[in-house]
């Protein structure tokens, strides 16, 4: 009954994700975070402390883990421990203006750096 994991998840049309938004992509079990400068990050929901699902709290604009109160900002960077490192990310590609998230490989990182951002080149 274990369904094989899909490699690419279609998150939707690029224009659906405005700057400064964080959207839950259920199928990929991750959040698509679009920063103010248009850069994209596919951030895993799994807390790096002990694996709990981290919800995005809209009112405070941050991820707050219910298990041990770790807090992360919209890039997945740790604001408050005990989480030892930033939330994992997935690679993003753009196909016909649709955002595709590669869920086959989790990219671990200690902190957020600008190189992790994906900048889409929108088709005219």
């Amino acid at each position, binding site marked *: 009954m*274990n369904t094989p994991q899909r490699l690419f998840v279609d998150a939707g049309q690029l224009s659906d994700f405005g700057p400064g938004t964080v959207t839950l992509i259920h199928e990929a079990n991750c959040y698509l975070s679009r920063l103010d400068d248009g850069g994209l990050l596919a951030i895993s929901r799994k807390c790096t402390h*002990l694996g709990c699902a981290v919800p995005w709290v809209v009112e405070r604009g941050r991820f707050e883990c*219910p298990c041990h*109160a770790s807090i992360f900002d919209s890039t997945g960077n740790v604001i408050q421990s005990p989480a030892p490192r930033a939330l994992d990310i997935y690679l993003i590609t753009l196909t016909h203006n649709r955002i595709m998230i590669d869920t086959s490989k989790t990219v671990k990182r200690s902190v957020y750096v600008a190189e992790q951002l994906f900048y889409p080149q929108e088709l005219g």
Partner: protein
Amino acid sequence: MYKNFFFHLRPRKVPARAVRFTLTWGLGGAATLMVVLQLLTGLLLNFAYEPFPVHSYLSVQHIQTELFLGRLIRNLHHWTGHFLLVVACLHLLRVFFSGAYVTPRRGTWYSGLVLLLLVLTANFTGYLLPWDQLAFWAITIASSMLAYIPVVGDLLQNLILGGTEVNGATLHIFHSFHTTLLPLAFLFFMSYHFWCIRKAGGVKVDGADRQNMLPVVPELLVRELAFAAVVSCFLLLFAMFFDAPLTGMANPSLTPETVKAPWYFLWLQELLLHMQPVLALCLLPLAFSIFLLLLPFLSQKREKPSLFVQVIFISFFLVIITLTITGVWFRGAGMKLLLPW
């Protein structure tokens, strides 16, 4: 042949002091009885249980609400599992303070440690099977702790979960271990454990008077049967009055406010809140395991463990117990400290 087989497990006569209840507190016997109870109730539950996500939860609900005596059998299996772990730990304490681990009892000590590990594994693998929120997140937390082990942590976690997170493959792996490999391992190591005790001349009796011997049948047998009846009654009454928990169905997207590892791993989760992950989840447990493994060599010629060995052992045990109690009763949502009353 029957008599011959029985003789391999039991002598015909035992020293009068060996049948005194306070010598062993009946802990090994209680643990044996509980394993047998687990095998029987587990066998019955397995007739109705389906080891697939969603189905597993529904089948446990079915057992709990519709099957004849289903609730009682599940309760009995659930609570006996927990009590078995407590009894096994008390048995370990009793054996330690009796010094019953040096030659010729090394085999008994090591097979006992393996059996303790099996009880822990059986409890852990069984914990996930109801596939409710409590089970799902407790196993998620406990297995995530593995990832902190340097170098092999991620590999171990993937191996146990059958992937990077708890899913259908994990349920399948846990169920297979819980219902096939572990019962077989129990039978094998319990047999070896009993054989070792028999070979070493029965339970350890200080200054046993070999002149004052009693026949095993009926003197020991009657006492054992009476004790087994008392333990069975206690477990049955407990199972009648306290239901095994079954929360909402597992939802990988929604972590409940209070998430804790199974109580026997809570001390590790608690340690993780207070110190470096590598120290908490790798070095300290490893140090305690090595201490237990080397114990027969640390006090080779002594009757009882030396004061130094006792201090180390008691310190470890007190730390584990204090952290477990804190984790179980003094932690609330977000693992914040609170008073249980």
